[in-house]
């Protein structure tokens, strides 16, 4: 941003069993993808507390990605369905709080889909680049913060 061009800052919550391994595969296969994403490994997409997503946006993320196993493939049977339900409701709530729904994404990426991970990150980065920075500011003081 300092030289006037906008580089999106993305946070990605990736499940340990599928998507993180998929991202790892993209790395070991030397597939290049946009360096804009900061990856956080979680045990399951169902572990992603909506508070994590809100905090990422407050701390300066322009976009947040949750990625987990394909439906039916969850290591914990149902975690990704929980993630899907929360995602749909949280996306609605984010819009009410003035955060465009395009800034929040849920994708299924398996351990063998390195190329798909590459594609998702590149596409999401470009989408956020077009949307521009989020710049979420709360002018309510910070006497106590999460």
């Amino acid at each position, binding site marked *: 941003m300092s030289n006037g061009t906008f580089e999106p800052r993305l946070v990605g919550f990736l499940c340990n069993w599928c998507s993180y391994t998929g991202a790892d595969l993209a790395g070991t296969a030397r597939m290049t993808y946009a360096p804009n994403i900061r990856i956080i490994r979680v045990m399951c997409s169902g572990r992603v*507390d*909506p*508070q994590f997503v*809100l*905090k990422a*946006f*407050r701390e300066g993320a322009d976009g947040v990605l949750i990625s987990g196993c394909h*439906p039916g493939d969850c290591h914990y049977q149902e975690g990704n*369905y*929980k993630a*899907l*339900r*929360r995602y*749909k*409701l*949280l996306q*609605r*709530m984010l819009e*009410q*709080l*003035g*955060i465009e729904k395009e800034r929040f994404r849920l994708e299924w990426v398996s351990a063998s889909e390195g190329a798909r991970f590459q594609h998702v990150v590149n596409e999401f980065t470009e989408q956020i680049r077009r949307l521009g920075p*989020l*710049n*979420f*500011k*709360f*002018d*309510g*003081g*910070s*006497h*106590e913060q*999460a």
Partner: protein
Amino acid sequence: MSKPKVAFYWCASCGGCEEAVVDLAEDILKVVEAVDIVFWPVALDFKKKDVEAMADGSIAVSFINGSVRLSEQEEMVRLLRRKSQLVVAFGSCSHLGGIPGLANFWNRETIFRRAYFTTPSTVNPDGVVPQEKVIVEGKELTLPEFFDTVRALDQVIDVDYYLPGCAPPRQLILNAVGAILEGKLPPKGAVLSPNKSLCDDCDRNKTKPEKLTIKEFKRPWEIFLDPEKCFLAQGVICMGPATRTGCEERCIEANMPCRGCFGPTDQVYDQGAKFLSALASLIDSKDEKEIEKIVQTIADPAGTFYRFSLPKSILGRRKMEAIK
């Protein structure tokens, strides 16, 4: 020894918290016997200059209700903080932002436009809106500044304890006053109500099915509410799972679901997000389209989940630039 000095003040609130103090009924006499009330604008004729004249730290405890939305309120709470040894945020508005905190979905401009121009009952042909300064017959009249963002008390000053509730129930107030007078206070920053969720204490908990699932969300007026069955099991949004107990279940007993006025437990920062998490996982579908449809049956997710806590949520407000 002189009696400890106590002050009460109200900021952006409905007056219900003042009522809660008066509702102590004969017990208030015991309180009055034990303390000197040195400032209480709603009931006693002390002025700001009387507080200013007191030595710093000379008030034992100030009970402050209401959220902060005007510059005048900010000035008064800063003054009371300086003069007081303890500050207790009294009631939901002071604790979390409360109902006035819902104004954080808007800003000053849109609130003024609505209040002074577009409500059906407004008659304002000259387009008069409140000004911070106006000259009338050569004299300057002033009004406080109206902020874009409503804040909870601890977002403005340091707060020692929180008395939750809209309004705080009698027993919790008496417990708090007793603890202060006896000097048996918990660690600073404590919310003076048990640290567990409302469901833990709710009589209806036993009617909750083993696997609770919801196909369609309903609003309380859309169905005949069973007076004994768990509200969530009836498809009605009840904030109980994400709300602190201690309220004596006043709403539940009146056959209305919990709206969350006690705020979250100590383990949770953002009550609305945590409730969203719990509620969404009850949705009875694995199909994306169907989940979307079920989610649409919730009328106003953000306003419902953050009914009392928007200023104290992680984001705190709707993004300013998104308000038109």
